[in-house]
């Protein structure tokens, strides 16, 4: 697995840039991931609201939240989520939130 430098630490990531060492996740790591992956810097209040929501959901249920729930509970339009994270909720927001890669479907 390749390594990258985030928040001054060497962290293992997969091919798609998802961190492989969840224990090393911190707010600083999230800021760096957002900058590297989505050219977002600094993260706004809404960025953090979304990232924290995704993290809390994941810690509680062990999976990423469904897109509909994510939008509804945060009162975000899906379009706005893509404006914040141009790669979308999975490849953008979940990555910044330090989640493992969501299992997608072709």
């Amino acid at each position: 697995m390749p390594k990258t430098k985030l928040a001054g630490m060497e962290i293992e990531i997969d091919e798609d840039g998802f961190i492989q060492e969840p224990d090393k996740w911190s707010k600083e790591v999230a800021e760096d991931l957002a900058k590297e992956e989505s050219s977002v810097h600094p993260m706004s209040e809404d960025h953090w609201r979304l990232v924290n929501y995704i993290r809390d959901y994941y810690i509680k249920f062990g999976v990423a939240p469904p897109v509909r729930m994510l939008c509804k509970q945060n009162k975000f339009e899906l379009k706005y989520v893509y404006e914040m994270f141009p790669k979308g909720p999975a490849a953008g927001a979940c990555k910044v939130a330090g989640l493992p890669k969501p299992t997608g479907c072709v």
Partner: protein
Amino acid sequence: MEDKTPMVDELEKGPWPSYVKELKRAAKKHDSVKDLIKVQERSFQRKMTQWKHGGIVGVKGYGGGVIGRYVQNPEEFPNVAAFHTMRVNHPSGWFYDTKALRTICDIWDKHGSGMTNFHGSTGDIILLGCTTEELQPTFDELSEHGFDLGGSGSDLRSPTACVGPGRCEWACFDTLGLIYDITKTYQMELHRPPYPYKTKIKASGCPNDCVAAIARSDFSLIGTWRDNLRIDQNAVKEYADKKFDIQRLVVAKCPTEAIELVKGKLELTHPEDCVRCMHCINLMPKAIRPGVDTGATILVGAKAPIIHGAVLSTVLIPFIKVQPPYTEIKQLWEKIMEWWDENGKTRERLAELIDRMGMPAFLKAIDVEPCPQMVNTPRANPYFFWG
């Protein structure tokens, strides 16, 4: 790994076209294809895929359209370390001019492996083999030339239509116009996956169902007619004069015995029994045509197996006129999506949700009255003995 690929080479033998021959031709131009052939040899040796599961890559602003592919041993096969698939939305009915095809091929030769799949089972143009760095430039150049990505993941997949009135005299509605309109209307749902799982819309102009809407789409529109078959008796006579056995090949094969030969004339003696199977029309296209009061039947819930087995769609609306701006059809689809999105579990298709929650709950939610045509399998109750 040595360059010999004896097992893959076997597929070059025989009189039929060989994709291995084509791969070897492409390998002269693209190193990635050289490695691809070696990866395939390895997969034959080990009897398992040499690609990793999944991958999340994409282009800016889109959540679908690209499927991530990574090889299991990138050190051994560096030229296919990342070998992503791009789906490009096809035009309705797959009509292109050669200039459009050349444009796609040139863009793909420049940015990717040059390998395509025209078309994938999704209906899209499939561009096979792109590195992560080249995804955005490929998309940008495709966009400049008027192309867009298709669907993937939990979104509305690229809507698909048969050639319809573009080439087929049996088209009972304008499949091309409808699917073009739907594609344009639901760009958000197509590019930014919002749903529990994938969902598909397909339109076939007649019951021959050339795009297999009844077997593959959650929302199918299949052309039909409300009046009766049109029969040209002069043309029937021509068939008979050419020793075409109408009685054996057409009349005897009518599944509901709706059509008969009466004194040399082919007559629809039981029009109420005609089930629009298309058999007589397919066999005697010069003599028999669909009626003139045409439209479509809307069916829901087809899918290939994942959670449950494969399911064919069932009738929801027996007949609807299909005319621009298609408001009624789009409103119905939106209501169905709303119910599915609100109630569906992850990876649960519409058919499975209807099965779990029941047809009455579904009909109530979308505000459609039950009708006899919705009965999936008549007389299926094993505790009742029909006379």
